[in-house]
């Protein structure tokens, strides 16, 4: 299980002061979904929190050659968020026996929170990277 909390104003400042960073952090689909919302930054912040929560649930931070866009939060037609993995993160998850990953998001009062829950085919190989040097 992984959890992450991100301040919406902090994300807003990150986006404002670093032109182009959105393309590094978010897939075109994530950006498009959030642009359709009245509170764009709230939604994009929640997606960033979700990426962090998923990587924490994996027991690792973002590793070498992994991209932030390798963890994508999409939405079902009913609006439920679902995680899609790509690239190096997908390869890592597959090789370590990931069976399923689920995520919940919420944002209120300037804070976005995400929980990620992972289910593994077995409890062995994922533990090897438990001590990755990742910041909170």
């Amino acid at each position, binding site marked *: 299980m992984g959890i992450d909390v991100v301040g919406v104003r902090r*994300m807003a400042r990150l986006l404002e002061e670093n032109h182009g960073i959105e393309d590094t952090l978010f897939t075109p689909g994530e950006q498009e979904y959030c642009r359709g919302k009245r509170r764009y930054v709230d939604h994009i912040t929640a997606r960033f929190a979700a990426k962090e929560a998923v990587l924490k649930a994996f027991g690792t931070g973002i590793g070498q050659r992994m991209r932030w866009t390798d963890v994508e939060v999409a939405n079902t037609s009913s609006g439920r968020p679902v995680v899609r993995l790509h690239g190096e993160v997908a390869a890592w998850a597959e090789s370590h026996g990931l069976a399923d990953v689920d995520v919940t998001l919420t944002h209120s009062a300037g804070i976005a929170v995400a929980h990620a829950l992972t289910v593994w085919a077995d409890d062995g190989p994922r533990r090897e990277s438990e001590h990755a*040097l990742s*910041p909170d």
Partner: protein
Amino acid sequence: MAISETEAFTAVQEAVVGALGVDEDEAGPDATLMDDLGAESIDLLDILFRIERSTGIKIQAADLSTYIQGGIPDDEFADGNEMISEKGLEQLKKVMPQIDPDALRGNLEAEKVISLFTVQNLADMVAQRSNGGA
């Protein structure tokens, strides 16, 4: 493009000040990014993007741990109890020369290592990258 150690430090300090909203005095060479200055992962992203803008040197968040660990496999960098090994301490002394291995031997958890990373350590990394280092 190679940049001097002084230029690297200036770029890093400016990035830290801009991203964290701290005073230049607070962002001195010995200040640790996480513990002393309170940087979180989103702040590190901000700092690294600012450094890229000012120097052209791209460092990703994942590069920090790779740089610190120096290519040593996880199971050699730390022991079974997640404490940094002797080999790990030797590596840390190379990239974080301010640490005292004797004081940390046997009681430095792997996940705490990043909390020892200072403004100067990041500047050294930037300077090394600008010279084509890993």
